[in-house]
């Protein structure tokens, strides 16, 4: 649906800035995930270090976006779609910042793993990372294009990541049982896998915030299937 512009151009610009900043934050954290996983796969501890250092920029942008949102709430008293966008933006911003923290965790564990011989070839971890990154991209695309189908897809992909995480956990458990000397490395890998799983949870929450923004329907505590069938807000009236 084509949106008319606000009569106040200043307001229009302020809203657009928040959107652009969220996109940029998304790019930053998505890249951080990519780099942190690459530092593991290529045993590149230098890359891990730059992910840790890069988190400061993520935190600063997070603060900036939050300030802008609060300022708009105070001076514009937004309503309807604008109100839903700003409240969604505050949540999405917080989730992206947490995703940045997860990337730092992954980078730290990767640096520790790089100190020891590789336990096993990594097959599922890169798949998880790719899926999680795709989910972040898709949820932010859904925000920009107001694409509710894309937002719902993100929720389904979360299940893929969850099952990969469980698979990795079981596999590493067998490593530990067979040879307890692998415990330290196995636990580090489990923590990385767990971080990726949580990243996909955050991406899912972003998608839910987008669904709220588009429809006004709160899907935070519903199962995927309920939303896929799609109760429109009219049904609730």
């Amino acid at each position, binding site marked *: 649906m084509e949106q008319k512009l606000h009569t106040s151009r200043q*307001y229009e610009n302020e809203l657009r800035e928040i959107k652009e900043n969220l996109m940029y934050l998304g790019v930053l954290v998505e890249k951080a995930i990519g780099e942190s996983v690459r530092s593991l796969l290529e045993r590149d501890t230098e890359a891990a270090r730059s992910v840790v250092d890069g988190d400061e920029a993520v935190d600063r942008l997070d603060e900036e976006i939050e300030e802008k949102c609060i300022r708009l709430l105070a001076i*514009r008293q937004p309503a309807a779609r*604008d109100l839903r966008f700003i409240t969604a933006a505050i949540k999405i911003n917080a989730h992206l910042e947490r995703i940045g923290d997860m990337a730092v965790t992954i980078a730290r564990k990767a640096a520790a793993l790089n100190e020891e011989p590789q336990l096993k070839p990594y097959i599922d971890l890169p798949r998880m990372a790719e899926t999680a990154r795709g989910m972040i991209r898709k949820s932010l695309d859904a925000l920009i294009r107001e694409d509710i189908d894309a937002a719902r897809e993100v929720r389904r992909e979360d299940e893929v990541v969850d099952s990969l995480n469980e698979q990795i956990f079981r596999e590493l458990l067998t490593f530990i049982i067979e040879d307890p000397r692998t415990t330290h490395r196995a636990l580090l890998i489990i923590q990385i896998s767990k971080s990726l799983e949580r990243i996909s949870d955050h991406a899912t929450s972003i998608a839910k915030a987008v669904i709220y923004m588009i429809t006004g329907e709160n899907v935070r505590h519903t199962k995927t299937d309920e939303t896929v069938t799609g109760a429109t807000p009219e049904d609730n009236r």
Partner: protein
Amino acid sequence: MKESNHIITTENVNFYYGDFKALQDITMGFEKNRVTALIGPSGCGKSTLLRLLNRMNDLIDGTRVEGKVLFEGADIYDPRVDPVDIRRRIGMVFQKPNPFPKSIFKNVAYGPRVNGVCRKRDLDALVEKSLLQASLWNEVKDILDRSAMTLSGGQQQRLCIARALAMKPDVLLMDEPTSALDPVSTAKIEELIEELKKDYTIIIVTHNMQQAARVSDCTGFFYLGRVIEYNRTDLLFTTPEKKQTEDYITGRFG
């Protein structure tokens, strides 16, 4: 919105100023003991509708009403109905405070006196009760003989509300009652509206959308003489159904 609770309903109402059709096909119900806000840009017909509900438009030459306006089920435009009687039961408060150039007491007592209340004790009680209801009593109880014109704008507006309440109306129509007031007086009037809805039905026209969102239970959005959307206020301001409503309340005008 359950129909049984409607104290006033309009059915397919059209309204004309001469040849100009100011309202088109208005069908709405106003719930008893609720606050209903009418919003929309200038010239959308919201004030016209408000004035139509107590036949205030009768005072303007060349106006014409089509359709029905039912107050407690009876058509107020029935030729047998006395408009003065209707205005007694459906009171009105205007944009600018318009107290009479008389004492505070006489302002409130004026309506009841004209309507035959003359015992001093009865009048005293009625004036006190009305001023209490309008949250003005404590500020004026020692200066009831002073001219109403010496009060501040916000106090004058509350005096006008007290004057309307002294007629013991069922419905109170308010036409932008705070647009000439400062934020403190505005907050007092809004607080008062919340109090008054226990005993009265209130219909308020306002240009201040935040005010509509704050004080009302239901909101109707008007545009070019039509009701575009009429819904619970919380829904209308968070998830409006019509794009025109959304554009207006989010500041996308023109």
